[in-house]
């Protein structure tokens, strides 16, 4: 017993070892997050005047029609992005050559959009889609479509979607490509001898082996598209009207534009929890179906 107690005393010194890490995490993560939580339950009038308001800001945010609209727009945008980018990425990956110079060139080409900063992507498309001087906008108008993303909500949406697909499909394609290269040749050969159709090869040979990378691709694209800010800010500025105002932009208007710190903090917490919830729901449902099968 005495020896054990002695051991325990010695072990306690280990806490000193992890102390720097705890300090860094607290300083850079926990305290800022808790500050936001702290703000979210107070009404802040100026530096010295504040009242505790409980969950008032949460109630207000969740019943705010502009928040609900932005939230629904956000859901629609993320759903559309996932519905297009994931299948398209897989399709591109399946069509890629697996070796040789062409494969290397294609990989570099695919990676290029991922290296461009968000605001530059926004600027590129802002100019590219303009109906007066942009290549895309002018071409579409020349072809007889009256295209104007600054005035037509539908056009603004399509432009935003096209931009996101242009920017991020590569990520899905690269992940899927990495997954596909790990499928052993014998698996294709066995399926061929079994008489499997192209669809069956995809469904039963490729998809099960792509599952891991696709879960990562969906999670990354879900979180990223749900938090999208810079590109629509540069491209449409949330307009026309509020039709492309997503959650992050509404939040920025509130926090930075109007300096409503309390409501903005409550908004942030809700926003954070939603992303956490969606990711968790998706991840556990995928993992559960794995256990079932």
């Amino acid at each position, binding site marked *: 017993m005495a020896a054990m107690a002695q051991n325990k005393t010695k072990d306690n010194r280990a806490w000193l070892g992890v102390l720097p890490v705890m300090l860094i995490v607290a300083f850079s993560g926990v305290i800022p997050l808790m500050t936001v939580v702290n703000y979210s339950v107070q009404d802040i009038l100026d530096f010295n005047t504040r009242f505790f308001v409980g969950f008032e800001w949460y109630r207000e945010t969740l019943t705010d029609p502009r928040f609900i609209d932005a939230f629904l727009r956000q859901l629609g945008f993320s759903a559309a992005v996932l519905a297009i980018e994931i299948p398209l990425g897989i399709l591109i990956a399946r069509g890629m050559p697996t070796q040789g110079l062409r494969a290397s060139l294609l990989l570099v080409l695919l990676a290029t959009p991922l290296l461009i900063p968000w605001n530059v992507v926004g600027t590129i498309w802002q100019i590219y889609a303009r109906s007066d001087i942009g290549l895309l906008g002018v071409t579409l108008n020349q072809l007889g479509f009256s295209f104007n993303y600054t005035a037509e909500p539908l056009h603004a949406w399509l432009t935003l979607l096209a931009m996101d697909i242009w920017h991020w499909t590569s990520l899905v394609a690269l992940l899927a490509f990495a997954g596909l290269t790990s499928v*052993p040749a*014998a698996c294709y*050969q066995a399926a061929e001898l*079994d*008489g499997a159709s192209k669809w069956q090869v995809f469904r*039963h*040979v490729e998809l*099960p082996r792509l599952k891991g990378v696709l879960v990562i691709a969906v999670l990354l694209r879900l979180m990223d598209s749900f938090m999208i800010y810079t590109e629509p800010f540069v491209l449409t500025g949330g307009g026309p009207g509020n039709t492309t105002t997503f959650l992050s932009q509404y939040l920025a208007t509130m926090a930075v534009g109007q300096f409503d710190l309390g409501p903005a903090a409550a908004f942030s917490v809700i926003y954070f929890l939603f992303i956490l919830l969606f990711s968790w729901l998706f991840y556990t449902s995928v993992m559960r179906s794995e256990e079932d*099968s």
Partner: protein
Amino acid sequence: MARIRLHEISFTYEGASKPALLPISLDINDGEAFSLLGASGAGKTTLLNLLSGILRPTKGRVFFDDVDVTELPGRDRHLAQVFQFPVLYQSMNVAQNLSFPLKTRDASMSHADIHERVITIARELEIESILNRSANAISLFEKQLVAIGRALVRPDVSLVLLDEPLTAVEPSIKWRLRQTLKRVQEELGVTMIYVTHDQTEALTFAERVSVLADGQILQTGTPQAVYRNPAHQFVGHFLGSPGMNFLPLDAFPRSLRRTFSMDGDPDVIGFRPESAQLTAPSPELLVGKVDSQRILGTAQGRVVSIYGLRCGKEQVFVRSPASFAFGDEVGIALNHSVGFREALRVGGDGPE
């Protein structure tokens, strides 16, 4: 089931300077257990891929039951393959894996028929108890059994190719899987071609075996014939552990030389370690000096060893239950020997 006939097929990989397979002709009987044996790089896999339709021969034709299948893709040849590691459809359970090849092509097969066939095969391989398990949740051994089951499940399968199917399985259960394979092959009467570099697997599985080296078939015959009377020095060397002993003719005493020379004028004489006896040295016998001993085990209460003996510059190995000390001079009496001239067997020595 089908009779397989390879007619003068050869194959050269694109851009390769020399052919991977020299013209080969081979007949495999309906329902035969056949084995292709050779070291890696001998052309086994190339030959296998030519059979399964992954590769097309540069020259020559492939016939299944007198039907020319040379240009047919693999899926239309009605064959199945078992690979080095178990290839299963991960998203399906064992029963779905087994029924998959039946569902892809033959739409006329009823649900009940498919079920019955799956049960038959599962019973044959003794995997009925795991039919409802996920393909991911079974042992490697069971996975390979399921892969074999999937290869056998189609009633119209004409040929099953086995590409070193025991590689991934741990040694302790290799014999069990080999036993199962052999039994299933006999009971279902499926034509099987077993490709391996392991002589034990080839010789215990096959009714006939072909030994390949450098893109050529050196010999085809029953395991006994190939082992006892190798047609090429490489075959004698490759089979057996240790392999056949080879000595130049002039290493033997004159009386023996004369006897050997009467049978086809060989330049090298080969004999197996177990087809010689060690006795007292005499001028009539090949004489060697004991320089190593490896104990194999006991037989009928006597210790059996493999002795390494030095005969001039050469070393030979002889199995013997007698006991000798290092440096002893012993006579080596041959019970059975094979003569070679320029590496090829000469002289008649019984039927092949």
